Each structure stands twice: as structure tokens, then as C-alpha cells.
């Protein structure tokens, strides 16, 4: 009897979906699940029986490849940068646009990684700082015609300030409460942008934001934005790497591992958390300025909770605290849905399922961080 108890799953799911999907839909669910489970029942033992011989080789070759990459780290990295530098002639404008968008998310994910990955604090309203950066540039530009390259640091600093102001009362709280407060902050920001018509023009948003100009050269083509974001991303990666290897970065990691121990080693825990929070906000602010300049039109609907959730999933799926992991996570989550354009309607559904499955089977992410340890 127990051998066939799995058949209850498809029956249960079929019944569950019956009111929503009608008879045909729920029959489909039933049959698909039955076949899926049967297939898994056949395939999994099959793979397991193979493991001793061929899969072992595969595993060792993967580890081999990994060690090769670590051995030739610098050439490998330079190779990737060169590839990205010389990619544009071989791809079309649409691809460049997708990569630019992915680049913005890499900035965001790297920023969020500082606070979630390095310091171990959960932040759920991260997109608010992105919105603050974007609106800072949009307002300064449309009212006082501040140019892009001046606005970049201003946007970052404004977001930093907001992060500091929000963080200073909140970071003394327990971990979960921080998550909730930032979630609330994210919603407040979006709602204020949506309703403060006199300043933000409400749901219509702000249009006709200037494109970036440098020495009389205007960025208008996707190609220009491609190189601009590439520079920004490389700069951000550089800054993040330097940060993690600094005294501050080590303090963050110590706090993540054990707050009490860190505190007793003389680390000012609250100040360090506040610094991480504000710096990560500043990253988002910079990304926001770039976003506003690229779109030339921004509205509150770009800054919903789902964006925060998306960035958080990039960090978690990529591997919290690992810079290559986070970059991979961001690229995957932006580029993969573009490949799935044919399944447009099912994208977000699959995305949700993917998040659940990932947490189930590989919670440490694609590329978990390597700990620098002395053994």
C-alpha cells in the first residue's frame, strides 16, 4: 500500500485545482503530476545507479574546472571584462538594452548584498532607496537642470542620508523587525511618490529627464548606456571587493557570524550596521540615478515591493555574501525571463516556483561564498 501512496499527490492536486481550472485543467494537472512523479521514480534510481561510474567523473571534472578557474583567477576575470568590452558589435540593440537593465540590477544586488550578505540583516524595502535616487535626479534635473554626472554622487548621498536616518533608530531592533520596518518604509516611499502630486506629479511620474552628457557628448544609443553601465558595474565591484577586504568589511562579517562575539572584540555593532545599511542605500541611489537617466521618464510603478523581492532573490539565489554569485544571480534573473519571452504569461509563475524549489534544494545559492579561513 505504501508503495502507491504517491498517487495521492496528483489526486489531491487535481481536486485542489478543480474549482479554479475546471475539469479539463485539473485533469491536466493530475496527468502531468502523475507522469512527472513516475518519471522521477524511474529516473532518480537510474541516475543513482550511474553515480558510481560516470557521474563521479563529471563531479571531479567540475571540481577540476573550478580549481582551474581559481588558479587562473586574474586571467579569467580579465577575459570576462574583455568579452564584455568587445561584445556590442555582435549583438543587437535589444540585447544591449537587456544587458544594460541587467547591469542596473547588478548594481542593486551588489548594494543589497552588503547589508544582507555581508552583515546578515534582512532588508525588504530596498527599492525605496533606488526610487529616492531616481527621483532625486529627476527633480534636480527638471527644476535646476543639474547634469547627470553631478547628480550621480548627489543621488547616492541622498539615499545614504535616508538610509542613515531610517537606520539609526531601527537598527537597534531585532533582525525581523528591521525587515518589517524597511518593508513599511518601501511602501511609504512608493505611496508618497504616488500621492504627492505637487512635487512628484503622482502616478504620471516625471518625464523629459535629461540624458547624460559628458564634454558635449550625449548618451542616447543603447550602446552608450551599455558602456556606461559596464563602467559603473566594474567600479562597484571594485569598491565592494575593497570594502570586504577592509577593516570595515571584516567587522561586518564578524557581526553576521556572531554579534555578541563581535561586540566583545571591540566592534561598535550598531555603528557598523548603520554604515552597512547607509552604504548599501547609497549604491541603490546611484543605480536609481542611472535608471532615471536611461529611461528619461520615471513613475512610482517602477518601485513596487516586487522589485525589492526580485533584488533580494538575486542576492539569495546567487549566493549571499559572494560577489560573483550575486552578479550571476542578477544576470540570471534578468536574462533568463527574456529568453522565456515565449512563455510571457507563465514567467512570474515559474519564477515563484523557482524560488521555492531553489530554497528547497540549494539554499546556499548558485555560487556560495568561499570563506577565507585559516585551518
Amino acid at each position, binding site marked *: 500500500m505504501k508503495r502507491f501512496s504517491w498517487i495521492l499527490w496528483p489526486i489531491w492536486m487535481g481536486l485542489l*485545482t478543480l474549482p479554479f481550472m475546471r475539469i479539463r485543467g485539473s485533469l491536466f494537472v493530475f496527468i502531468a503530476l502523475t507522469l512527472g512523479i513516475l518519471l522521477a521514480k524511474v529516473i532518480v534510481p537510474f541516475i543513482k545507479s550511474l553515480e558510481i561510474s560516470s557521474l563521479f567523473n563529471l563531479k571531479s571534472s567540475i571540481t577540476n574546472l573550478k580549481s582551474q578557474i581559481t588558479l587562473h583567477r586574474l586571467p579569467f576575470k580579465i577575459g570576462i571584462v574583455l568579452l564584455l568590452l568587445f561584445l556590442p558589435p555582435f549583438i543587437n540593440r535589444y540585447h544591449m538594452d537587456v544587458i544594460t537593465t541587467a547591469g542596473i540590477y547588478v548594481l542593486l544586488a551588489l548594494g543589497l548584498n552588503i547589508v544582507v550578505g555581508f552583515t546578515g540583516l534582512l532588508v525588504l524595502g530596498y527599492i525605496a532607496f533606488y526610487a529616492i535616487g531616481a527621483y532625486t535626479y529627476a527633480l534636480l534635473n527638471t527644476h535646476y537642470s543639474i547634469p547627470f554626472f553631478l547628480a550621480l554622487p548627489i543621488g547616492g548621498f541622498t539615499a545614504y542620508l535616508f538610509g542613515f536616518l531610517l537606520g539609526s533608530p*531601527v537598527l537597534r531592533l531585532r533582525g525581523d523587525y528591521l525587515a518589517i520596518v524597511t518593508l*513599511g518604509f518601501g511602501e511609504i516611499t512608493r*505611496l508618497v511618490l504616488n500621492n504627492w502630486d505637487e512635487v512628484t506629479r503622482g502616478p504620471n511620474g516625471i518625464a523629459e529627464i535629461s540624458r547624460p552628457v559628458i564634454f558635449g557628448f550625449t548618451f542616447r544609443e543603447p550602446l552608450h548606456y551599455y558602456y556606461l553601465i559596464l563602467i559603473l558595474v566594474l567600479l562597484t565591484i571594485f569598491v565592494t571587493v575593497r570594502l570586504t577586504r577592509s577593516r570595515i568589511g571584516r567587522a561586518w562579517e564578524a557581526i553576521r557570524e556572531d554579534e555578541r562575539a563581535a561586540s566583545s572584540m571591540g566592534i561598535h555593532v550598531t555603528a557598523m550596521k548603520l554604515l552597512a545599511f547607509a552604504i548599501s542605500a547609497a549604491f541603490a541611489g546611484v543605480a536609481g540615478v542611472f535608471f532615471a537617466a536611461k529611461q528619461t521618464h520615471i513613475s512610482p510603478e517602477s518601485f513596487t515591493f516586487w522589485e525589492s523581492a526580485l533584488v533580494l*532573490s538575486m542576492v539569495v539565489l546567487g549566493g549571499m555574501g559572494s560577489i560573483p554569485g550575486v552578479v550571476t544571480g542578477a544576470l540570471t534573473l534578468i536574462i533568463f525571463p527574456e529568453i522565456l519571452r515565449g512563455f510571457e504569461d507563465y514567467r512570474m509563475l515559474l*519564477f*515563484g516556483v523557482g524560488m521555492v524549489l531553489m530554497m*528547497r534544494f540549494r539554499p546556499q545559492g548558485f555560487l556560495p561564498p568561499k570563506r577565507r579561513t585559516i585551518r
Partner: protein
Amino acid sequence: MFQQQLLNGILLGSLYALIALGYTMVYGILELINFAHGEIYMIGAYSAILILALLTSVHSSPPVFFLFLILLPLSMILTASYAATMERIAYRPLRNAPRLSLIISAIGMSLFFQNYVMLTQGARDKVFPQDIAKDLSLWLSEVFQKFFPPESLTPTGLTLFGAQLSFVDLLTILSSIILMVILQLFIKRTKTGKAMRATAQDVNMCKLVGIDVDRIIRVTFIIGSSLAAAAGVLIAANLKYGRVHYFMGWIIGLKAFTAAVLGGIGNIPGAMVGGFVLGIIESLAAGFISSEYKDVYAFVILITVLIIKPTGLLGERVPEKM
């Protein structure tokens, strides 16, 4: 004006309280912010409409009191099945994982449910059938005539302290209070309720004394989601608010969560009090300050409470679990 806003606030608060209970019970045991709970409420509202369509296709005009008797429990059962399945698939395998993984899983489930309903039911609003809502109102007026003095009754509702309240509103408030009383009795008087309270205090200790913790968690999800489903059915039947759509659960879920925090998260009477307080504050602020920002107040309250008194109105100090 004040009385009217107060009554609206109580109505809103009863819904917040019903949903907040699910958040608070799950948080009490798993320390998980169950982001999919708002979607469970949405599924409850959809279940009401789908089951009603099913019933009317079997019998052209079923008697209203029968409908009322069967619609609420059926929707609650269907929604609870969804929640129990979600718990089994997305949360139980992560029992020993870090809490961040659980939260990501919950966000994933929330995305899944929204898109599942959008794909199967379409992105357009659904509305409770007009004629059935009218029948329900008529039947309720007959019932309430026996309890309220005739001078307070109008054809569509009743007048209380100079404020209007429709029959369905009254039904909503009364049924949520009844459900909360039942819940309180269940928690305090039954063996399972006792086990739930014990599990919220110390999971490992409960395992030691032979409580089936997995079962208790399942029961918690079932009860919490049934209450949310009841809120969904009641709002679907209320034509004043009753537009049912696939993202209806998101903002109300956040507000209900605020209510749970306001009352002290993990604390069951706290969630009820928090729900009513939040509903009343929000309604009064929307009436007297500005209705444009009516969604902002909840979050401002949330942040203020967490900064000033993180344990909430009724919560006691909990030591951080290691």
C-alpha cells in the same frame, strides 16, 4: 461623521483582525512572516465566487440561508486545503533551514498564487452576483428585525448612533467576532489548542513531551487560513467593497501584518485588538486628515510602534531565540 468613520473602522478592523490572526499564529510558532497569507485571503474570496457559481449551476436559485450556511464553510475548507498544501510543499522541508530561506520561499509562494489565480481566472475583476447579494441582504433584514428596534432599521441597513451600516457590514462584524470567540475557545479549551500554545513557547520541549509538532503547525496553518478565507468571503459578499482581483491580498495582507505587530506579534488577543485599533485609526485618519494617504497611515503606525514599543500593545518581552 465621526460615528460613521468609527463604524467603518470597526468593519475594516474586523477584517484586519481576522487576517492578522493567521500572521500572528504562524509567526508565534515558526517565526516566519508568511508573505503568502494575503494571497490566501485572496484565494478565499475567489473560492466564494467559484463555489457560488458551482452551486447556482446545480440549482438555479438556491435558498439564501442555505447558501450562507454552506458557502462560508466550503470556501474555508478549500482555502485551508491550499494553505495546508503550501505548508507541506514550501515550508515543511525548510524546517531546519535559516529563516531567510523560509521568507524567500514564502515570497515565491505569494508570487505563485497571484499568477496562478491570474492565469486561471483572468486579470479582470470578479463581482459577487448582484441578485444573490440582494437576496442575502433581504434575508438578513428579516433576521435582524427580530433583534433591533424597528425605528433603527432602513431597507438596506440600520442606523446606529446616527451612522449607517448595511446588513452585510453588520454580518461581517458579527461573524468575525463569532469566529474570534470560537478561536479563543479552541485555543484555551481543547487539547490541540493547548499543544499550539506550548509549541509557540518551545518547539524542542514539545517534541520531547511527545507533541507532533508537524501536525500542530499544519493545524495552525489551517486555522489561520480559514479565518483569512472567512474575511475573503465576507468582503466578496459586500458589494460596497467586493471587487475580487488577483492582487487584492497584497496591500491588505501588509496591513493585517501591521495589525499583528501593533498588537504584539505572536500574541493572539493582540492581533484582534491590533486589527480593530488599526482599522479605527486608519478610518478616522482617512476621514479627518486626508483619504489620499489612507494606505500610508498603517505603515507609519507600523514603524512608530516598532521604534517606540517593539513588543506591541499586548506583547510581552520575548528573549531572542538562538
